[in-house]
């Protein structure tokens, strides 16, 4: 049960002189929820892209279920059980919500009726069933984010990588989204999420890692991390108190 699902060692990505991601190591075990936090430009999304294969690492190694996947293309990693969403959501806007999710469901199934039923079930799960026939381009921001999660879920992944799925949602939408993720976690899904909203981090994650200027500077439970002076410094600079950070997150 406790074997590492995702095992990253010394992952680095340099753009010319800039070390966007600098020797980051991280282990995610099955069933865990790990959050990545850090200020803007810390390299969170770049790190994600190294995991999903969108970018090739300058150095380091990514293993999924023990197998080295460094050289695999994004679609091959998806087939191995890696689902992801994008920071800027990428709905297939000319297609309707159902078709969007069917695109994901086609990865593991071939028959149209099976794919349709799987996709409808996923849409129901994320609360978009009544919007099945609406064009993805006509959905609200919050619906689009849920649609992206749905498309990734339709891949029947083992681990879901969510890049700021809560961004731009209002409070009640964030609450609904947390409930959705908790429900999915209860079914055994593993999560690695990038999140700016510290309230979400506190409510949802079991373990938090902090990236700053490409480096992993802290790792621990949500409480430990959000009370760590080092993290506060990375976020707000010197001289700020924890209370302010807590206030900012509320």
């Amino acid at each position, binding site marked *: 049960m406790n074997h590492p699902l995702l095992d990253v060692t010394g992952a680095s990505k340099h753009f010319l002189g800039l070390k966007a991601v600098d020797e980051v190591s991280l282990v995610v075990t099955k069933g865990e929820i790990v959050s990545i936090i850090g200020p803007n430009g810390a390299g969170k999304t770049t790190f994600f892209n190294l995991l*999903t294969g*969108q970018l090739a690492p300058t150095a380091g190694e990514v293993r999924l279920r023990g197998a080295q996947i460094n050289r695999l*293309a*994004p*679609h091959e990693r*998806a*087939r191995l059980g890696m*689902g*992801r969403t*994008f920071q800027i959501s*990428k*709905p*297939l*806007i*000319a*297609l*309707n919500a*159902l*078709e969007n999710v*069917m*695109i*994901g469901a*086609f*990865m593991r199934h*071939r028959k*149209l*009726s099976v*794919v*349709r*039923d799987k996709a*409808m*079930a996923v849409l*129901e799960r994320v609360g978009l*069933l*009544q*919007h*099945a*026939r609406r064009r993805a381009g006509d959905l609200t921001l919050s619906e689009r984010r849920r649609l992206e999660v749905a*498309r*990734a879920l339709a*891949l029947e992944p083992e681990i879901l990588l969510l890049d700021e799925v809560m961004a731009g949602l209002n409070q009640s939408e964030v609450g609904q989204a947390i409930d959705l993720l908790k429900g999915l976690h209860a079914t055994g899904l593993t999560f690695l999420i990038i999140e700016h909203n510290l309230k979400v981090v506190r409510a949802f994650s079991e373990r938090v890692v902090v990236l700053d200027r490409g480096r992993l500077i802290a790792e621990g439970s949500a409480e430990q991390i959000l009370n760590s002076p080092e993290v506060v410094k990375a976020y707000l600079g010197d001289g700020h108190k924890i209370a302010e950070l807590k206030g900012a997150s509320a």
Partner: protein
Amino acid sequence: MNKTDNTGDAVGGLSRADSGIESGQRAFVKYVLGMAALLLPLALLVDDAHWLNIIAFTYLMGGLAAAWNIIGGFGGQFSLGHGVFFGIGAYGAARLYVAYDLSPWLTVLPVAAFAAALAMLISWPTFRLRGPFFAIATLAFNEVAFVIAHNLTSVTGGPRGIMIPFKAGLENMIFRERWQYALLMFGFAALVIGITVILRRSRLGYYLLAVREDEDAARASGIDVLGVKLRGMALSAGLTAIGGTLFAMYLRFIDPPTIFNLQEVGVKFALLSLIGGIGTIAGPLLGAALIIPFENFLRAELANAIPGLSLAILGLLMVLAALFMKRGVVGAIEDLVARLRRKARGGK
């Protein structure tokens, strides 16, 4: 699994039954009815030689536009180089028939397979280009093909072209009667549309749409983007080559300016699809049904009045279509139906 349906009803949403995805049976019935309607003009005008020519050509161009639409419309890869595959079909079958007396019925599929293989080979590097850059690259292929056809005299006959002697007979794909050709072209259109109907319900069809919409999202959904493009292109090019073979056997004379004419071939496929409704099943066929007869009419009526006027009118029409029917005729009809439905619902 009934749970989904129940909950769907409970929230006043959709149940499985109205997911909008047609059953295979329904799609098949629609296809058969559509093809029957398509056959109607041929049945009504079977004695009119002038119209039969137009009808045959409309079927052929409709089928060719539908073949282009597979990669150009569904896959979103705006190729302007399909004249190359059309040319392979035309020259391949014509040369094999004239030089070796091989029946076009025998050679049409191997020639199409060759065109599909070549399409994959030349698309492999070009598919790295996106949008207009891809279109320009394919345009260049068409020009290269023209030069090759012009100079490779031993195969293509060079500028003098290939003349296919008139030896009527089913086995030669050469017919005495115009309606026989029209029926052949109808068969081609029905084949391409049939394949499109199946494709639209298959994994490859959905994957082509995903690739068109967003390549990064497609990759994240487990889609091998390049592989999907190559397969779509191969299918599209193979069907285009079949159309080229039929064209050669109908005209019985081919030369480079006829085959690699951008206006009449390479760009025409895209244009007919755009007018009818790009990325839809019926669109390319509708585009051909509107434009090909109209073009003939204009040419016949205006040729003696002011030279080039027919082209000007056609151009104007296309500009208007681009301005007011962005999703083509099919899109305009869909919008109209949606508006009427809404009105009917509002009236209740």
